[in-house]
């Protein structure tokens, strides 16, 4: 029962309000109450070049982060699934960025990405000054890749742990049997590990996708959507419109479109990863 109250108050009510508000001209501060304006906000949204750019950036971020981060996390999980001495130290080290606040991580990386920051110094050191590096976050063509790199580094540990949990549910005797049958490492992965991770796989796919599409904190702290909107995302645009620009209704419209987008992507993923038996 308490759960029901919470889900109604914090999920159904906001979604409903977002839907209603998006059809009005509600403002954050205004002497006039909201008036019904039909689909005006959506017409405006779909003709707003910033929205399409934000949408493209969001999709770009998701399309790169989802496969890279889940693949990388699986690789790490396989590495640290071994029984070697001090394995917990490795696990902790890989997990460390996850327990650090994304705000702190973003501020630190902002300094590292500066023209005379740590990243460029390291590039110079390893390339014997061949690579000079750029001002990563202030160059429209490198800002998003820089944020992608940092985001993967920060979040990969979390999914590594989930993969690891999945790996440990696979019974050891399956591997023993495979070994007796003379299966190679690759064959063991392909025929024992991969099928054994079916449930974990769907879970990771859906959670990474949703997290990637809601990219906001890094953008707010590191670039504010710039330079030249190259890192503006749908959630960032919605927060900016709703609070800084006081356009409650327009921001609701953006959120609603975002909601539909995430819902569609999740449903498609559910369909593709459904139990076919």
């Amino acid at each position, binding site marked *: 029962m308490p759960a029901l109250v919470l889900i109604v108050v914090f999920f159904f009510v906001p979604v409903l309000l977002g839907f209603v508000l998006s059809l009005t001209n509600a403002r954050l501060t205004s002497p006039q109450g909201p008036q019904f304006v039909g689909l005006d906000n959506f017409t405006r949204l779909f003709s707003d070049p910033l929205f399409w750019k934000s949408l493209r950036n969001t999709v770009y971020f998701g399309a790169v982060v989802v496969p890279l981060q889940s693949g990388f996390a699986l690789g790490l999980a396989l590495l640290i699934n071994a029984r070697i001495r001090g394995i917990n130290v490795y696990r902790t080290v890989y997990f460390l960025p996850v327990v650090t606040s994304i705000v702190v991580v973003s501020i630190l990386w902002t300094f590292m990405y500066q023209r005379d920051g740590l990243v460029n110094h390291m590039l110079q050191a390893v390339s014997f000054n061949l690579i000079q590096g750029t001002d990563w976050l*202030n160059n429209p063509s490198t800002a998003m890749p820089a944020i992608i790199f940092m985001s993967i580094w920060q979040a990969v540990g979390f999914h590594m742990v989930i993969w690891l949990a999945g790996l440990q549910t696979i019974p050891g005797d399956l591997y023993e049997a495979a070994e007796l049958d003379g299966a190679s490492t690759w064959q063991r992965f392909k025929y024992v590990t991969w099928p054994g991770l079916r449930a974990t796989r769907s879970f990771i796919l859906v959670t990474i996708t949703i997290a990637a599409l809601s990219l906001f904190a890094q953008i707010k702290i590191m670039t504010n959507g710039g330079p*030249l909107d190259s890192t503006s995302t749908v959630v960032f645009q919605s927060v900016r419109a709703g609070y800084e620009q*006081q356009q409650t209704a327009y921001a609701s419209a953006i959120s609603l479109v975002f909601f539909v987008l995430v819902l569609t992507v999740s449903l498609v993923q559910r369909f593709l990863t459904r139990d076919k038996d």
Partner: protein
Amino acid sequence: MSRFMIERRGTAVLAGVATAALALSACGVASTSSGGSAGELTLWTHNAGNPAELGVINQIVADYNASQSKYTVKLQAFPQESYNDAVVAAATAKKLPCVLDADAPTVPNWAYAGYLTPLDLPQDLVSKQLKSTLGNYQGKLYSIGMYDAALGLFARKSALEAAGVRIATVDNPWTAQEFADALAKIKADGKYQYAFDLGTGDSGTEWWTYGYSPFLQSFGGDLIDRNGYKTAGGVLNGDAALKWASWFQGLVKNGYTPAKSSTDAFADFVNGKSAMVWSGIWHSGNLSKLGADGIVMPPPDFGNGPKIGGGSWQWAVSSTCGEKAAAMDYITFSLNKKYLAEMAEKQNVIPATEEAAAMVDGWQPGGAKRFFLDESAKYAMIRPPTPGYPFLTTTFAKAAQDIIAGGDPKTILDQAVSDIDADLKANNHYGF
């Protein structure tokens, strides 16, 4: 810091969410008369993080409470980052304090939203104040400040002398050509990494508007057509604005200024990285680190006269205040020259009246700090006093950032104008 900041909402997103939630839940809640119980006035201020300014306010409140027995003023200080959100949330819940301070450009927005009541102060008191300390909206006075801030072109005298350019003064500012020559010559000298640091390291919104829209106004453009406040067309994307944009972008393209300054451009200037820096009175204390070599000049005249931004934090009375007369009485009391002088001394700000200036060392005519008062009186231009300002400032700041980042000025400014005009239309031109 008693700057121009509207505050950075991004850091207070949660507060904003809470605000929206309050906005939705507060409808129909019976409102009680706010601002404290009988005989008690609540006062809100933004400067919890600024002991110097808060100290003066505390002193005024204590003196006022001791000066009469009918009312007690109760002070509540907020951190600046969440101050505006607190006010908006309180207003939605009809729980605003009687007396509150507001950043000058937000005053019309709050007046329009019905948060504030026009001030009823003695005329001789108001007429003594610097124009830029008065918050007028629709012909009525809604807020009044104890001080103002000012921008300045801080420079190293030695760099100017080496380049063979004259030192600009309030009465005799540089022309656009003189400024261009100075930049070229200082750069040619090669002694400084940057000839002129714009201070673009602040990614927050308000600095971009406060700091750089005066250049646009000096070129003859503006954020909105102040004749009617019905469109930005022609002023934000006209010829003057395009000239401003290409000049602004040129500073980066020519290597005079970094596209992204470090977080403390003034420290870079003091440390010899740049020969000139665009900054404000709040750094005038640090200028003394350069001794006689550190000077401050007005901005160049780009055709429409030199311009700097005007308007800082100001006092206002809420419309839900039950004791309006007492609130006006308190504000009148707080504008005593004694307090204005103390604020100017402790806070490095421009005192709001001449008589207060006469009481503080350095602010008298000919004094070391006098530059800022003269500059402010002559060149300060307040940010557009329209309820639509929050939208104007975010849109302009983004446009300026995009121009610095190397985007096409015409496309950027046309888009900004179309965004602003759409917002104006959606709000019935905010009552204009």
